[in-house]
């Protein structure tokens, strides 16, 4: 088991290294010099030269790459070209919005998908099953930012239950923050819940067909007991995979949804940084998101190996 985890961890580090090189090289191709961009058209050459030295832009690309990565490892994301503040602080602030939003949406979608999937699978072919399949088919097709606009229209503009956007900050109280994140989280959760319900349903249908369920019923367990004790546990494996995969979609989705609700999260930070050509911010945020995705994949893999010893042999 330890060997397996070490092997996976090694490949995790390796992908992060390659990803960081890819990101660095891509941003490196950007035409134009950040220092002259920051100082405007009328800047003196020696002022630009000073700023370049201050930002470390006069070093070779390899040296800059190493100092960037070295900084990342120590939690130093560099200094924003535009705001002259540490990127790490900016990112930490924004994470306090984006991360709770993604988790809130993940929680919502699981809370919806689990009972819905079980209901549809245990009543296969019933009206309930058909309506679940129809609704989820629609839920997958709805773009979450459009659904977000509808939510704003109904719950913020017409009913006035929620504000149409903005974030009061966690200082305003936990529930005030949670309230501001509710519409965005619902919008994010809808397509994910639809996908998850369908996976839950089909995975459960598969396990309900298994011989061990028949055995469990034959030894006297009721349908409900067999479902809870045997089928659900085995049906969870594909569901976990999708959950892991969905996290990266949730993070990406959060970036778009933040724009609908004017939430001060990572997404807004990135888009501002792009328009201001604050490339060090773009670089670091993208790297952070890639790290999150790779880490989740790693954790899912390890969780599998814990649940299913056969998987340890393969990789």
């Amino acid at each position, binding site marked *: 088991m330890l060997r397996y985890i070490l092997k996976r961890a090694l490949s995790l580090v390796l992908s992060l290294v390659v990803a960081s090189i890819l990101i660095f090289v891509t941003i490196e191709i950007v035409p134009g010099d950040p220092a002259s961009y920051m100082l405007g058209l009328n800047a003196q050459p020696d002022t630009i030269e000073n700023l370049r030295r201050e930002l470390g832009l006069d070093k070779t690309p390899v040296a800059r790459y190493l100092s960037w990565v070295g900084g990342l490892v120590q939690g130093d994301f560099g200094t924003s070209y535009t705001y002259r503040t540490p990127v790490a602080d900016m990112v930490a602030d924004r994470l306090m919005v984006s991360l709770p939003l993604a988790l809130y949406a993940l929680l919502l979608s699981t809370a919806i998908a689990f009972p819905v999937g079980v209901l549809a699978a245990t009543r296969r072919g019933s009206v309930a099953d058909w309506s679940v399949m129809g609704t989820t*088919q629609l839920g997958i097709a709805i773009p979450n930012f*459009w659904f977000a606009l509808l939510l704003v*229209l109904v719950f913020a503009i017409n009913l006035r239950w929620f504000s149409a956007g903005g974030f009061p900050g966690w200082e305003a109280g936990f529930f005030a923050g949670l309230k501001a994140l509710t519409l965005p989280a619902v919008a994010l959760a809808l397509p994910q819940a639809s996908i998850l319900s369908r996976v839950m349903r*089909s995975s459960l249908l598969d396990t309900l067909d298994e011989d061990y369920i028949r055995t469990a019923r034959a030894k006297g367990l009721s349908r409900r007991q067999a479902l809870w004790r045997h089928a659900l546990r085995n049906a969870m494996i594909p569901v976990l995979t999708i959950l892991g995969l969905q996290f990266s979609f949730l993070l990406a989705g959060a970036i778009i949804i933040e724009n609908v609700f004017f939430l001060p999260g990572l997404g807004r930070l990135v888009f501002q940084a792009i328009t201001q050509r604050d490339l060090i911010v773009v670089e670091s945020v993208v790297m952070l998101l*890639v790290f999150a*995705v790779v880490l989740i994949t790693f954790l899912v893999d390890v969780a599998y190996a814990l649940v299913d010893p056969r998987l340890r042999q393969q990789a």
Partner: protein
Amino acid sequence: MSQSNVNAPAWYTASRVLIPGLLLVALVILAALVSFVWTPFDVTKLNIPAKLQTPNTTHWFGTDHFGRDIFSMIMVGARTSLAVAVLAVGIGLCVGIPLGLTAASMQGSLLDEIIMRGNDLVFAFPALLIAIMITAVFGPGAVNAIIAIGIFNIPVFARLTRGSALSLWQRDFVLAARVSGKGATRISIEHILPNITNLLIVQGTIQFSLGILAEAGLSYVGLGAQPPTPSWGRMLAESQTLITLAPHLALFPGFAIILTVLGLNLTGDGLRDLSDPRIRRR
């Protein structure tokens, strides 16, 4: 599921989703094609006096803040959505299939390992992140959206191709081809590829619909097609500032996206059921 459905021929159960799906997709393609020669109104012409009309007999879906006809804009927007998604699937197919076939024909080799690890790596970048990076470098545009979604599609097709090709390499007809002296490349093209076309078409349909959604998302945040090219995502973004004045502006582009994606998903489901009758009960 009732007994009659289990015994029904595969095409019957499949067609119940396939036909509505194909009809929806055909409708969208038709709208896009017709928009090249005719739209009810000229989408490049501003008509301020007629701005922000609600749906009526002249302007079926109403008009926007410049007095442009929403129905016409949706027809033209279909071109952008379809073109971006089709080309992105094309990139995924053209790069992903050769990679997957190569990896499968050299299973366990260093090249196989590199291709698979490379796939995992690209998989860690959601399409939106790729788009953000490309935009940061080259600026926003439809071409960059195509590239971003296309790159995202590559590992999807490479994995599917490798996975299904691996089992085919164990089959007797491949062994026979090897005995007759055919090389790995020829076997991959002549024997493996034709046997996985079904799977690739189904996955292609799914990626097509994901591409439509991704394109809409990218143009919504301003990373996709730029003005004056009409696009559904940007129409939604523009509608947002006017949502209290003219909520209908936000509705129709959304319906267009949903119908297209729904049509493609139904088509994909139907095709999958046709190619694999075992799952049609589900």
